[in-house]
């Protein structure tokens, strides 16, 4: 068991013929993910990866032909919002957007539309999802995690890999790892994932990796206090980040006194979450 993706995931890749798209499609196939289709407008009818995967002109055609139920998006930022709308309109339930650099007003329109449609988006600007041993959707290196009972939620990419690696080194396995992305407006937040992990019988503990900017960690702390029975361990990046500067991720910024690491750590600790002082400390706190 796991959340969001498992062995029944039938994946389509939007932007499959681009460099990133084709590279990661091969990685996902090698991992065992059921990649059933690709979409690149204007290249419908072609096949990629030695004839393993058919390419379609639109998401709708791809879904009708292959029964894909999940989409992963690798298209450039300026076309990414349209790709998300297209996937939602074609009835895809789970849309994972890897693309970094989507304008924030595009994301506000996307989120408003998706909420009305009832479709779930993970990301954008995220590494995607990994359910070790079953399915990988996105770019998380499959070899750094093993199957187990720790759920991982993170706003970051390589920092997440660092944590997965530390867990593996300590012989701890992962149920599902969800990269929710580093943008100020995303599709799935900490609370969504916490509640899914709470329901998932195979998840026993959760690691929450946050960073400066916004108040999602504070909201997560309230949720943990009210609803979580499973233990949560946290880590917050950016204690030393100067205010007013965007630390790489579009959403990682302390503005007007809001979004400070210290406030997030305090909120989490106040509801009994153990917060690690650095990532290598996480396994011992679990």
């Amino acid at each position: 068991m796991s959340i969001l993706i498992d062995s029944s995931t039938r994946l389509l890749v939007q932007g499959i013929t681009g460099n990133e798209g084709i590279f990661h499609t091969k990685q996902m196939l090698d991992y065992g993910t059921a990649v059933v289709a690709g979409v690149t407008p204007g290249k419908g009818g072609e096949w990629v990866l030695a004839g393993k995967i058919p390419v379609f002109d639109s998401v709708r055609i791809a879904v009708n032909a292959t029964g894909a139920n999940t989409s992963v998006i690798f298209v450039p930022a300026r076309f990414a919002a349209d790709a998300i709308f297209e996937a939602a309109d074609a009835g895809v339930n789970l849309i994972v957007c890897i693309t970094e650099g989507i304008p924030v007003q595009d994301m506000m329109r996307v989120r408003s539309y998706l909420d009305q449609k009832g479709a779930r988006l993970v990301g954008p600007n995220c590494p995607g999802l990994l359910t070790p041993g079953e399915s990988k959707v996105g770019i998380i290196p499959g070899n750094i995690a093993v199957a187990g009972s720790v759920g991982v939620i993170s706003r970051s990419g390589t920092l997440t890999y660092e944590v997965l690696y530390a867990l593996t080194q300590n012989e701890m396995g992962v149920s599902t790892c969800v990269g929710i992305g580093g943008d100020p407006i995303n599709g799935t937040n900490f609370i969504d994932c916490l509640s899914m992990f709470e329901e998932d019988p195979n998840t026993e503990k959760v690691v929450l990796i946050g960073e400066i900017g916004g108040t999602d960690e504070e909201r997560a702390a309230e949720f943990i206090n009210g609803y979580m029975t499973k233990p949560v361990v946290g880590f917050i990046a950016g204690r030393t980040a100067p205010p007013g500067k965007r630390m790489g991720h579009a959403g990682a910024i302390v503005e007007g006194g809001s979004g400070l690491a210290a406030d997030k750590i305090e909120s989490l600790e106040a509801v009994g979450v153990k917060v690690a002082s650095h990532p290598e400390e996480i396994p011992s706190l679990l």
Partner: protein
Amino acid sequence: MKLHEYQSKQFFARYGIPIPKGRVAASASEAKQIAEELGGRFVIKAQVLVGGRGKAGGIRLAKSPTEAEDLATQIMAMNIKGLPVRKVLVDEAANIKEEIYLGITNDRGERKPVMMSSSAGGVDIEQVARETPEKIIRVHIDPLLGLRDYQARDIAAGIDLPRDYWRTFGEIARGLWLAYKDSDATLAEINPLVITSDKRLLAVDGKMVLDDNALFRHPDLTEMRDLDVEAPSEIEARKYGLSFIKLDGSIGCMVNGAGLAMTTMDIIKLFGGDPANFLDIGGGASSEKVAAALRIILNDPNVKAVLFNIFGGITRGDEVARGILSALEAVKTDVPMVIRLVGTNAEEGRKILADADMITADTLADAARKAVAAAASHAGSVK
């Protein structure tokens, strides 16, 4: 990216928002000329991208073109919070009866734009939010529907604006919404929007911040970028597609991934050091990129050690190691280097770097400890 006051107000004017007559000047004589054309009394305003211009003496009232010239000379010799004043705005002075705040920004928590207004205009809105939060009216805008007329009326009523002004206020609010939307702004603000003694509404000051990720849609606005607000090293880094922020410490950081880069800074601090920069070299980490990053880091004379923290994910450790090796050949230095390389093909990567003059570390904590020690001993040897 921030726009100057004069740029913001000119942009607002395109959307029918009334602004004072005036123009920007790059010299005192030009300021005098503009004043002569305008007639009456003038406000001379420093165009710098920081708050608190007024308190610093960067906004002055002039009663004659000669006085305008004198004040422009004084203001343009100023340095406000570290920024040189290169231009002044010469505006006709308004007879102000009341000051209102009107702005739109992104509400992250609600995932929607929010229009905010207050009858307590002319001061920093964050100060109003702290001291008299009840004076701020907030209306969330559906990003697919845009600002509706009734919402603008609700705001006008909420700030106790006399009914006579509602229609004009509504037009200004709609104009501000469109200016915000069309420019992909993250902030569009009129502060103050004044009621003049002859009963007009006038946007006396304006501010816009644009979404850097949306600049590809706005080449005309991108040209307005003022490089004074950025450290030269940050401008240089952007050329190479590096995400770099200069800090004041002594340990340079070279990391792949933004979250891991922040974490690396934090752990340096945790073990008693101070990071000299934030740097995300991204996924690829070609030798060219690594070399450029290394040059930028070493240009800072405060840097006494460099910590490389590379997690080999999809980017393999051996590829990154080769990049680092050729970068080290290109950039000669006696500053000590500490490297931690883990993840995919880390073993092969370490072999490649075995002959390089680098201090190796296995864990993040170990790397931070070694970098802090190396910086301390290098600082000692340089003295």
